[in-house]
């Protein structure tokens, strides 16, 4: 693409997606992955990987060299008439247009013709299991309909059961660490496992006998396995136990607990003299606290051993504690090392309908705390009751500004430098509630203060006090 074309294309992008409607977002997330190309996932003790599938005469084909390459030393050559393959000490000979091949000097029938496409040897997916078993000399299981291949003993099993002590909470334990893509829609939480050899439980449908989380289901398609948890309230997932446990909780809980919290947790303080008793209804979340970054996104590398994502998680837990101590029902967007993009964070927040959204960041530069509200373009493209995704914050911006200023004053009262700014920082502009981003920087004691439980608690306590003082104003402005 030429530069001018790129520029024009980019200019046009502004208008694409303007009408992504908040109420349809969950569905859009789910459909985006489903619309992908056909893929084959291969699981082995050496590597788990995914390859594109091509169609030939209405049948699925894959490149044999690409399949074998991650598993060991493989070479291919052609003499014009035959395509020859050598994997370790195993030799194979394939003839374009013919289904008959020779592997280890024995005949092997592919049942469909071998295809040579620009030097690339393609074999039919339907016979890949038997072919690989022949070449690799071990058991290979092909799930042809879902395009998943398990080589040797590669498999991850899981169990799911309701927590006896903390209902409604569903505990899912896996035999190996997992990192699924998570998406939610009203009444459902979807976990898609592409890189893990997850295998089906005894029954594809699981029932738990719980009103809030009654059931879950398992299915496979297009190189992925998917677990769908059904709920009568918004569901959230938290990872623990080195990503071998996923805890699914409903937002009716005042708190989403991770089974294994981080090593550094701020000590809870005594209730503030101004604290009021909890009056939030079980369905209403007052504050959503979003620990910035997480998972693959480390944020700023503060020191060699310390990433921004770890500081924000500890701060988020501290702030949740401080808010709940003041009777403000609080939900964490992530309570573990979870990768979430800005759209997912905004969707989770907007479907929860909180009074205020606070996202947390940390920086090694400067001193004190910086609070940000969204910058928004002058143009809005709301359609009737549907808010423009890019400017969903617009109606709430005055309230967000008041919240940021009040929190800054509260910090200053505790002798913590605070400054209020605007920033083009997603997902602030997508949030349909008062929304403030908080960037915590070191105290005058230096960068190490960012990990100090005392400093974190001082900041979160001041922020929570600021939110509490605004409670009636925030609730009225909702």
């Amino acid at each position, binding site marked *: 693409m030429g530069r001018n074309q790129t520029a024009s294309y980019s200019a046009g*992008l502004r208008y694409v997606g303007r009408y992504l409607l908040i109420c349809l977002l969950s569905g859009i997330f789910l459909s985006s992955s489903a619309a992908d190309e056909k893929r084959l996932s291969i699981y082995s003790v050496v590597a788990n990987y995914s390859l594109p599938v091509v169609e030939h005469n209405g049948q699925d084909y894959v490149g044999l060299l690409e399949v074998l390459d991650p598993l060991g030393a493989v070479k291919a050559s052609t003499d014009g008439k035959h395509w020859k393959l050598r994997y370790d000490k195993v030799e194979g000979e394939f003839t374009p247009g013919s289904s008959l091949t020779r592997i280890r000097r024995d005949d092997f029938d592919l049942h469909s013709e071998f295809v040579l496409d620009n030097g690339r040897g393609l074999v039919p997916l339907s016979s890949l299991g038997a072919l690989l078993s022949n070449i690799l000399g071990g058991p290979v299981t092909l799930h042809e309909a879902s395009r998943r291949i398990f080589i040797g003993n590669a498999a991850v099993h899981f169990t799911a059961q309701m927590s006896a002590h903390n209902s409604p909470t569903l505990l899912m334990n896996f035999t190996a660490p997992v990192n699924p893509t998570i998406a939610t829609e009203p009444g459902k939480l979807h976990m898609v496992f592409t890189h893990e050899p997850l295998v089906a439980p005894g029954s594809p449908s699981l029932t738990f006998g719980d009103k809030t989380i009654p059931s879950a289901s398992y299915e496979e398609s297009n190189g992925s396995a998917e677990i769908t948890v059904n709920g009568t309230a918004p569901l959230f997932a938290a990872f623990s136990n080195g990503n071998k446990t996923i805890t699914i909780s409903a937002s009716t809980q005042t708190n989403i607990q991770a089974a294994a919290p981080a090593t550094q947790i701020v000590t809870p303080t005594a209730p503030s003299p101004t604290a009021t008793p909890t009056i939030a209804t079980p369905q209403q979340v007052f504050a959503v606290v979003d620990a910035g970054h997480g998972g693959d996104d480390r944020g700023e590398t503060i020191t060699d051993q310390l990433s921004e994502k770890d500081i924000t998680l500890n701060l988020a837990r501290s702030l949740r504690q401080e808010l709940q101590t003041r009777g403000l029902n609080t939900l964490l967007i992530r309570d573990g090392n979870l990768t979430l993009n800005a759209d997912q964070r905004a969707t989770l927040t907007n479907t929860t309908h909180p009074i205020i959204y606070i996202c947390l960041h940390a920086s090694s530069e400067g001193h004190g705390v910086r609070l*940000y509200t969204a910058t928004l373009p002058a143009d809005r493209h709301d359609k009737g009751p549907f808010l423009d995704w890019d400017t969903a914050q617009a109606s709430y911006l005055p309230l967000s500004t008041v919240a940021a200023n009040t929190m800054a004053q509260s910090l200053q009262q505790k002798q913590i430098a605070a400054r*209020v700014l605007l*920033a083009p920082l*997603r997902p602030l502009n997508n949030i349909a509630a008062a929304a403030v981003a908080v960037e915590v920087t070191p105290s005058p004691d230096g960068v190490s203060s960012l990990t100090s439980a005392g400093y974190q608690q001082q900041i979160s306590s001041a922020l929570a006090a600021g939110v509490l003082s605004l409670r009636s104003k925030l609730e009225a402005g909702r």
Partner: protein
Amino acid sequence: MTARSLAIAVIILVVASLSLGGYVWHVHRTVVSAVSVSEAQPVAAPVSGPPEQVSLYVAYDSTGTLLPETASIPLPQDRQQRARELLRALITKYLEKNSGHTLAPGSDVRDVYMVEPGLAVVDLNSELANGHRSGILVEELTLASLSQTLTINVSGITHIKFLVEGKERETLAGHVDLMADYDVSEINQMANALQTPQ
């Protein structure tokens, strides 16, 4: 040929090979050193066009501010080239040794495209984006500095869009949004808020 002649010929060949190898090594070192020096140096100032008084919005990390500074820069008449040279002059300041807001060595603006009506597409190079420090304020200072300098000095710009190496990018360095195209009012809001020190 006698054995003595053969030995002399071999010795001459060995000496010639060693000399040639030494020369190649010397040339290689000279070239590598010249390349690394040129990459680390600030972008050269533009030379085309008469000098003009412009306002550069310069970022300072120590105070977290963006302050206007007058500069005299030779600028071409063409809006597109003018925009590019303006931003290059600004980036040159950030590449100086004692800059208050340092950018990574080799940072540059690849080009600026004027797309009617009123859209300026700024294509940054990968050195600027990949080497940028991470943080909301430090990223915002760069974005606001480039944007405000452009909108104040080049007429007719209503929106600005940033690309990196000709492609869209989610954020500058993990925080500030690069997918959006910014309208002048947003840029002004940012720049005004950043003019008050911390």
